[in-house]
């Protein structure tokens, strides 16, 4: 199988190649025109336990990947093999148990949708910070949000939960996802982020 990924920037070559491998291709040649793509494809193949060889120079490369993907390998998200940071340098601050002002039931569903979308999207935040009423979302009230937060953690997001707030709401022993933290660490994550989005 020959795949022409020239003119494509990462993560596209990796995603295209992974799609073929997922589909059962055991002998794949990918043409790319940049060294980052060579590096990322090589990293992916190596990590997935496949054989890989690359050839070419000066903007014209071929990567030859052989071997059969394991079931576990098929479940792996291709983006993580990209040298481009899979997690961008932004934080999300969740300070309430709902999103926006207005009807509380609608607000609860909106925050569920927001966390779901973050967990499914390409641009995973570097940190997800829960404070005040927001801590309730990861302390027993919300199985869906808890699941999605766990997924974010598995994709490289750091999740910090305000311990003072858990204590205040009587939820210290109910935390289901994330790490108990404090004001120092939570503020530090915000200061180190290029952008903090408050939900």
């Amino acid at each position, binding site marked *: 199988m020959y795949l022409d990924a020239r003119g494509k920037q990462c993560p596209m070559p990796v*995603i295209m190649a992974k*799609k073929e491998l997922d589909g059962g291709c055991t002998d794949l040649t990918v043409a790319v025109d940049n060294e980052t793509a060579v590096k990322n494809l090589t990293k992916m193949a190596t990590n997935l336990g496949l054989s890989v060889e690359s050839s070419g120079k000066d903007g014209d490369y071929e990567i030859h990947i052989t071997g059969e993907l394991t079931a576990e390998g098929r479940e792996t998200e291709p983006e993580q093999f990209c040298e481009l940071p899979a997690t961008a340098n932004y934080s999300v601050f969740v300070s309430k148990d709902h999103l926006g002002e207005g009807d509380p039931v*609608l607000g609860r*569903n909106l925050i*569920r*949708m927001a966390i*779901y979308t973050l967990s*499914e999207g390409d641009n995973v935040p570097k940190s997800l910070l829960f404070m005040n009423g927001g801590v309730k979302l990861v302390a027993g009230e919300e199985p*869906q949000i808890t699941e999605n937060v766990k997924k974010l953690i598995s994709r490289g997001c750091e999740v910090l939960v305000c311990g003072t707030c858990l204590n205040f709401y009587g939820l210290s022993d109910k935390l289901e996802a994330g790490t108990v933290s404090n004001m120092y660490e939570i503020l530090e994550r915000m200061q180190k982020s290029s952008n903090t989005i408050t939900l």
Partner: protein
Amino acid sequence: MMQHFYVFAFGSTHAAIEAERLLASVKAVVMPTPRVITASCGMSLRLEDEYADEGLRMMKGSGIGSWRYYEMSGSRRDLTSKLLAEAES
């Protein structure tokens, strides 16, 4: 990674919220309506394969109007939808 799941999309957010309560027992997940599904409100409910039939039965007997039920498949970036059932308001 290939995905496969089912989605209820709704004509109104109120119908979606009512259905969310109803379908909590079949582990319905609230999600933004997939982009490929147009002409419905922005809030949808996702069901996994094992609850697909039971969820549909519950909705059919619920009296909640104005919904459509889709089978979704494909990769995360390239989902396709297939309409399975619908109820008018």
